[in-house]
């Protein structure tokens, strides 16, 4: 430190120094840290030179991290940019704390848009129209995806991974041997199939909701799937954005329809008690016992990672999948419910923009697709990069959807979509409360 430090530096660190009673060499804090969100005009490369290192914070570790890093390796090689990825299972809290303290990473990968909107409201996230070609991006993405990242008219995150939830999985060998149809056009046709399965002495469905403090999220997906199918995307959007109350008659109707399926006698393996006590990842295990205890599982594409190892090794022959069909008398088109990781930029410079550009393009993810468990949000992604036929089929289902909607509970305020909606589903499933009671309570607890 100089003998006579600049006045500003003294002021900014004086409080901190006093609090600790420490003097001596203090590093001058970066005055621009985490304030990139203030920029409103278009960013042109060269405005701010990069540092050569880009930090990324995300939720996933383990094999997913390996896939993610493998997909970036060639990019790092070509550009000379070093990418430091940090995984944190408690990402939603960590990002809020770190961003709040001015210690945000350069890029964060949000598994739900809610947390990103909170930080966007504080002006910390740079809208993507500042540094990406919005129209180009929208033209290759699955339609409707960018809308999930829109906050007060501007889009703050670029999708880099998709989860497709409207999928029904079956054990291919046993299912086809018994001769059940694999292409139900409507839910009503699917119900005819499940009636046959039940008549054959097998539980048609296996389902699991247990997820520690997040127990119930699988239930919210069921409600969302039926909302989309029975009442269509317009009512769905109204419901998610709270333009109609949560306890509207349409919602109650959907609860009753889901109840017919899940609570119906002999419809789900082990009944409602088993649903509450089984983690979603263990629900498919019942499909591969000998003989199968259950035939159908409705779950997102990520569930394949939880199949037994010998099944995973031979996925295309062991597992079958079709899209959850439409509702007869409801919305006509094929809707798909999904989710996705949104990459959001906190600090604008040449390097971070280059990384965002790559992450949000359809060229990203080839290596990850090869490793499995990853879906590109782009319709234009090269399908041959996926490691197996099943994933290709899922990608085709997703890109062929007439309507794509983001998981509604992820878009609702956290106290509902990550709180009262979850607990409400559990209470409703266990018949502690009626659909009307649960919806009334969620409505009453909706934050202003």
């Amino acid at each position, binding site marked *: 430190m100089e003998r006579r430090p600049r006045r500003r530096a003294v002021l900014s660190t004086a409080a901190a120094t006093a609090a600790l009673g420490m003097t001596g060499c203090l*590093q001058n804090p970066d005055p621009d840290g985490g304030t990139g969100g203030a920029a409103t005009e278009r960013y042109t490369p060269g405005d701010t030179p990069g540092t050569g290192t880009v930090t990324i914070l995300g939720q996933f570790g383990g094999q997913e991290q390996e896939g993610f890093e493998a997909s970036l390796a060639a990019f790092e090689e070509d550009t000379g940019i070093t990418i430091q990825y940090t995984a944190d299972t408690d990402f939603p809290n960590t990002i809020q704390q770190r961003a709040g303290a001015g210690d945000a990473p350069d890029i964060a990968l949000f598994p739900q848009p809610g947390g990103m909107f909170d930080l966007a409201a504080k002006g910390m996230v740079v809208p993507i129209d500042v540094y990406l070609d919005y129209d180009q991006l929208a033209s290759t993405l699955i339609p409707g995806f960018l809308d999930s990242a829109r906050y007060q008219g501007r889009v703050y995150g670029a999708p880099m991974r998709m989860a497709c939830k409207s999928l029904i999985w079956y054990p291919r060998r046993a299912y086809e041997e018994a001769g059940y149809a694999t292409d139900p056009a409507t839910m009503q046709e699917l119900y005819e199939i499940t009636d046959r399965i039940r008549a054959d002495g097998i539980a048609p469905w296996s389902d699991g909701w247990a997820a520690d403090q997040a127990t119930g999220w699988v239930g919210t997906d069921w409600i969302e799937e039926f909302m989309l199918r029975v009442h269509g995307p317009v009512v769905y959007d109204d419901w998610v954005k709270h333009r109609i109350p949560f306890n509207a008659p349409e919602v109650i109707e959907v609860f009753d329809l889901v109840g017919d399926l899940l609570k119906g006698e002999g419809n789900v393996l082990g009944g409602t008690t088993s649903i509450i006590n089984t983690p979603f990842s263990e629900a498919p295990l019942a499909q591969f016992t000998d003989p199968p205890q259950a035939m159908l599982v409705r779950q997102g594409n990520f569930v394949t990672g939880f199949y037994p190892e010998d099944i995973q090794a031979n996925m295309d022959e062991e597992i079958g999948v079709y899209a959850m069909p439409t509702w007869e008398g409801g919305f006509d088109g094929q809707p798909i419910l999904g989710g996705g990781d949104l990459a959001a930029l906190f600090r604008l410079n040449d390097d971070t923009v280059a990384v965002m550009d790559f992450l949000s393009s359809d060229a990203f993810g080839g290596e990850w697709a090869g490793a499995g468990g990853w879906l590109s949000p782009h319709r234009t992604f090269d399908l041959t990069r996926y490691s197996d036929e099943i994933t290709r089929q899922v990608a085709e289902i997703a890109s062929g959807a007439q309507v794509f909607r983001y998981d509604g509970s992820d878009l609702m305020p956290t106290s509902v979509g990550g709180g009262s909606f979850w607990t409400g589903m559990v209470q409703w499933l266990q018949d502690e409360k009626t659909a009307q009671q649960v919806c009334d309570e969620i409505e009453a607890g909706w934050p202003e």
Partner: protein
Amino acid sequence: MTGRMQDGRKRSPAAMIAMPLLAVLWTIPTLGLLVTSLRTREAAATTGWWTALWEGGWTLGNYATVLGDPSIGGSLVNSIVVAVPATVLPIMFAAFAAYAFTFLRFRGKDVLFIMIVAVMVVPIQVAFQPMLDLLGPRGLGINGQFVAVWMLHTGFGMPLAIYTLRNYMSTLPSSVVESAKIDGASHFQTFWRLVAPMSSPAIAAFATLQFLWVWNDLLIAKLFLGGGENTTIIVSLQQMLGTQGQGAELLTAGAFISMVVPMLVFFGLQRFLVRGMTAGSVKG
């Protein structure tokens, strides 16, 4: 086994039955964890661990995967680098403070002591945001370095350390300290030669607790060290999980690997703890 104990008292038959029973009861969760860590994910998901003997599903794969992770070795070292100073520092400061609170007279002593006890009640989580501000780029800019975590663990560990050590020191016979004073010993000499050795059981007990707490700490290590090259073992283990909890079977194995070092510390300090208890006493 039967008969009398070393000091001549009779053994109680009730205790002889109850103690092993309790010991077994207390070991069950750890045993379950150990068995689970040696089973495949599907076996652990479909059958209870106690059925492993006849149901099978054994594997060493979980351990192989965890140990095969290149970051594990480095993060074990990091954990030691974090835990040792974070145990020594608070105890050193707290022992000085406890001595002052016990044997010195100064104005505001009671008020100060009450304040220290009061801050024990503050939950550590609520302090994170202001501390991140202070240590992060807006403040000192030392976030991500070891010194940040040392300071935090010292700060958060001190109140309880001062409280327990003061309470222990106040049970020491004041005649010892008084006679030292008469012999002309300074406070420093009294502390190092008399009070510190006599307090070693309390110090050892607190050191064990503090070490285990720091070793198992996830929140502070994650927020203030980050996931870079300074990652501790607990944070590394957490980073093996996928979005929907893929890889949870690795955590059981990881738990046992991370347990080895605290076990060594515990058994090391335990000997010291027993010796300390029989050592400090007043003689003629």
